[in-house]
């Protein structure tokens, strides 16, 4: 994408949860860069650690029971994990904004749209109310809410799911953040609405130069449509990173291949859809070697004993598998 320094650098991030005296390692050493102007996708099944990774960046992990135990998250030359609460608060919503999976419950039911959408600019930019309302109308119109000015006085329950997600996006973008983290933004929506929301995010990202999106999803078709690069996560670790072309054209990890094979395709019509065998183990039961070895079709003894490292096989294309070369 760009030769400049990355906008956000995540280095060796570890996030744990203490559940009934046991420690659940949800994220066990994740490192990646988010470059200016790109859309970076994180894909994985439920329990792969993708949401925890995204919440960790904004330090939104509920503590207790969660805790970020190790790592650095560098943004603008500062480590977000070392900032004071107040400094972190100034980053949230202003520099890095986030939208969530559940538009139905992510808005406060007893506050008007006006109050919720203007809140970030009132807090961060100290605008007066009148200017804040103008900004809100502008941004709500931009996300495609018809008659935005009149709808400011409405409450969330007066909006449909798709409209609420638009409100969420408007609220996230009102301070023009450098990074938008979108955690499964379309999962709860109808397919037609999904496409509109994704298009909208793309359009708005294009409007501000150098702004980036970190898109978390389990839906590879969303990744294919939106992203420049993709991270594939499994068991709290990055299994493969590459450009969209690398990943869809030349997947290296057996897990990535499994994911790709389980997308329904025209040429497989009438045949049984492929599914990766087994289920994601409970967070306490992941094997000690390669996290994926309990479900991998090409598993060898070495996989069960020795945890593979993330290796760069081609420029910008990294994979965590002992046998990636042989298998491809």
């Amino acid at each position: 994408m760009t030769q400049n320094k990355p906008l956000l650098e995540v280095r060796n991030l570890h996030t744990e949860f203490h559940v009934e005296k046991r420690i659940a390692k949800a994220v066990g050493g994740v490192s990646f860069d988010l470059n200016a102007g790109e859309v970076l996708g994180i894909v994985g099944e439920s329990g792969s650690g993708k949401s925890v990774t995204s919440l960790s960046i904004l330090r939104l992990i509920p503590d207790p029971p969660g805790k970020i135990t190790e790592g650095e998250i560098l943004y603008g030359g500062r480590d977000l994990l070392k900032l004071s609460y107040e400094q972190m608060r100034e980053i949230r919503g202003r520099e890095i904004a986030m939208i969530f999976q559940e538009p139905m419950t992510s808005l406060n039911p007893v506050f008007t749209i006006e109050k919720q959408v203007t809140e970030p600019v009132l807090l961060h930019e100290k605008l007066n109310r009148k200017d804040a309302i103008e900004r809100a109308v502008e941004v709500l119109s931009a996300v495609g809410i018809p008659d935005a000015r009149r709808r400011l006085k409405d409450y969330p329950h007066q909006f449909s799911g798709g409209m609420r997600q638009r409100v969420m996006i408007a609220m996230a973008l009102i301070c023009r953040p450098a990074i938008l983290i979108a955690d499964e933004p379309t999962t709860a929506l109808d397919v037609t609405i999904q496409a509109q929301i994704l298009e909208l995010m793309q359009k708005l990202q294009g409007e501000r130069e150098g702004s980036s999106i970190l898109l978390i999803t389990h839906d590879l078709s969303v990744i294919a449509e939106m992203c420049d690069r993709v991270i594939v996560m499994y068991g709290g670790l990055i299994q493969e990173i590459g450009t969209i072309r690398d990943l869809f054209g030349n997947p290296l990890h057996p897990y990535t291949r499994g994911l790709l094979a389980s997308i329904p395709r025209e040429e497989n019509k009438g045949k049984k859809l492929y599914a990766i065998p087994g289920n994601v183990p409970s967070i306490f039961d992941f094997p000690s070697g390669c996290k994926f070895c309990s479900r991998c079709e090409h598993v060898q003894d070495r996989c069960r004993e020795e945890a593979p490292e993330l290796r760069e096989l081609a420029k910008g294309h990294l994979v965590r598998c002992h046998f990636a070369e042989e298998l491809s």
Partner: protein
Amino acid sequence: MIPTFLGITLLVFTITRFVPGGPIDRLMMEMSMSGSGEAGGGGGSAESSVDLPPGALDSLKEHYHLDKPMIHAYFLWLGDLLTLDLGKSFKYNIPVLELITKRFPVSMYFGLIGFALAYSVCVPLGVAKAIRHGSHFDFGSSFLVFLGYSIPGWALGLLLLLLFGAELEWFPLGGFRSSSWEQLSFFGRIGDQIEHTFLPVIAYAAGSFASLTILMKNSLMENLGQDYIRTAFAKGVPSRRVIFSHALRNSLIPICTGLGHAIGIVMAGSYLIEKVFNIDGIGYLGFTSIMDRDYAVVMGILVINTGLILLGNILSDVLYVLVDPRIRFS
């Protein structure tokens, strides 16, 4: 609303007709007892009741509509009610309405102050407990409120009276005001009233602390776990504001709607506490009127209490609409 009112009054009216020992029996018994008392206490034979001329008995029955079929009598009573005529007390022989209106403000005074005290203590306490969930403060305050919950109000009242009234002599031994009230200066009156209010109000409110505090705490904690709280944090809202604006507003919804229900119950007074503190309120009147089979008073108090509770329910609904934008009158 109106069917509820009719149902309640009809039910109680029916019961008053079927329980043994009606007002006439009572009256005759009293007459015979006072009669024999005048005679020098010799041989209290209840036979004297038959001395009443039969015509007088019938006219008495007619006066109280006791000669009519029950349903007929009920509608007569209901008709009187529409003209705000609640009848006359059998016992005191003065209009029921007068009897009630004289005592009602006294009960309401204690009830409302207790109610205000409960809300002004429980809401902040519940919030503080939710924020410091699991701390020593949380456990300690839970212990105290449940202690209050497990002691009946009148028993606590007795204890308080014994300790602070009789033993330490900090507070008067009950009553609504001092007998010397009329002679007191303005500030003296205020002081006197406060002295007489303190202990009964604690007895009134102590039992309601637990449920209200825990309701507040749980409601706030539940709301703090909601998705929109995470959204607020993600926007960079300071945590104080997340708690006291975003979460609290939502968690006050059940508290507000309970307010209407509680107010109806609270204003009705409490017999036992009024008895312990020697307060001549509506709770005490209600209890004695049942014991005396003074049915006009029983029904009168029932009308007032039912009306209050129904009004409280309406108030709850109105509050619901005010605090929760998702609810609208249709």
